[in-house]
């Protein structure tokens, strides 16, 4: 469905040095599957998502969507061919309201549909449809509306960048439920969730661990989750102990 072939992306950092932030990525995302991408901060997860969406131009390699080479296509064209991306940090818009954005995401949506899409992400349509997308919205609210936009598009590939970030626990479960319900075993579509969440990782079909721009591990979640679970929890403990040691 979506195939990345030897994809790398290089940036020139402030010192003028070239740095590869994702390196030689080969993945063939299959339809009807739910993928998790995880790994340490700065590992290249968001960069990979932006490369897929066309927001960043990769430096080498090719990207194919259902056999078509989309490497040279811009963001708009890729969106129209069925790629959707829910931003890790959704931008704010002064003057556009929640219903404007949902309508842009799914043109022709009717009033009922609009309300349902808001309600699905746990927000009350009466309170939110006319809310301004400016700085007055809380981080968690903006995040949920971002997710609602991607859920309301009928995309072939939907990427959610840390949907759990800033969202309360109860809502996280609900959002993940929605994503699983919509994409898992749906032969028309694929979802990629970038996540650190221990309730999300095990329920995905595949886990990809990105570290320093490289795929460090990948496989079914049955294989990978046991390997990284300790790592995640260990890191948490290390951090805590580190602090305690420091104090002693």
């Amino acid at each position, binding site marked *: 469905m979506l195939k990345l072939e030897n994809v790398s992306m290089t940036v020139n950092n402030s010192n003028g040095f070239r740095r590869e932030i994702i390196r030689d990525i080969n993945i063939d995302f299959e339809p009807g599957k739910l993928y998790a991408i995880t790994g340490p901060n700065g590992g290249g997860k968001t960069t990979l998502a932006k490369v897929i*969406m066309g*927001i960043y131009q990769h430096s080498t390699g090719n990207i194919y969507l259902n056999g078509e080479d989309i490497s040279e296509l*811009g*963001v*708009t064209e890729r*969106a*129209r061919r069925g790629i*959707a*991306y829910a*931003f890790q940090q*959704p*931008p*704010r*818009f*002064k*003057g*556009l309201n929640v219903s*404007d*954005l949902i309508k*842009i*995401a799914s043109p022709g949506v009717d009033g009922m549909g609009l309300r349902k899409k808001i309600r699905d992400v746990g927000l009350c349509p009466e309170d939110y449809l006319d809310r301004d997308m400016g700085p007055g919205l809380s981080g968690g609210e903006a995040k949920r509306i971002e997710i609602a*936009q991607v859920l309301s*598009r009928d995309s072939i590939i939907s990427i959610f960048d840390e949907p759990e970030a800033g969202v309360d626990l109860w809502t996280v479960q609900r959002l993940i439920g929605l994503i699983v319900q919509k994409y898992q075993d749906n032969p028309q579509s694929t979802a990629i969730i970038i996540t650190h969440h221990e309730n999300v990782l095990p329920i995905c079909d595949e886990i990809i661990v990105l570290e320093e721009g490289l795929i460090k591990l990948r496989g079914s979640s049955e294989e990978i989750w046991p390997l990284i679970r300790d790592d995640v929890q260990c890191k948490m403990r290390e951090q805590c102990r580190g602090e305690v040691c420091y104090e002693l």
Partner: protein
Amino acid sequence: MNFKPVDMQLLDMISNIKSIPAGAINIRRDGEPVIRQSSPNIKIGTNADNNGLLVEIKPGTRDETVHVPVIVTKAGFHDKVYNTFVVGEDADVTIIAGCGIHNDSHSDSGHDGIHEIIVKKGARMKYVEKHYGEGNGQGKRILNPTTNIFLETGAIAEMEMVQIKGVDDTVRTTIAHIGDKASLKIVERLMTHGEQKAVSDVRLYIEGRGGSGQILSRSIGRDNSVQVFKAALVGQNECLGHVECDAIIMHKARIQSIPELIAENAEAVLTHEAAIGKIAGEQLIKLMSLGMTEKDAIDTILEGFLR
């Protein structure tokens, strides 16, 4: 009344009227009143100096609207008028003003509206003024409105002033005097393009105890246009005042934003925020990732910003 299509189009642009509404109305075209109609509560007459209107709204008048649009369609015509509005005690009304100019010629045409608005004790008023210009000639379309507004004890007023298209040159001067527990909110929306120039100079004197004043401005400067926005708050009593100017700059435009706070009383609380910047790249990318073209994304962001 012989309204031409161009008249109706201008009227629709500035005051959203497709036909002549019921109620109090005065339509001025090329310096002459073409329609004048009072209502039982709102009397529209000529002022003492015979150079404009005197609009008197009876105390206690509720939920009525008065329309006083001005249109200029004669090439090279420069109109000037002095209008006075008196909103009676405890009234609650909407005033729809505005000016539209159609100029296809090579000579400038324009309108200077000098307004005095008195909002009496406990009254509420909403004032909406739209500016619009059209036509293909080299002649400029010029609008220079001056508004002096007085808010008596407990009066509440909101003024919305919009100029989106077609006015080449404008200098807007607004001076307000805010009394005890009175409150004024001024909202300006401005877009300039081409070689246009727009200056807005707003001064609020918050004189009364417990008074409040707010100036909110959103503007977009495109092409080679120039905008100057001066907003001053003078706090002379225990009061609240806030200025907010937010501008998007594009192309080779120039935008100057000058907020000024003057406190003459230790209990005055005055604040301001001002920001000028281009459209955020993230916003464009976000809308494009929902399938919009870059051009549509820009239009959507700008339209939303001025809404």
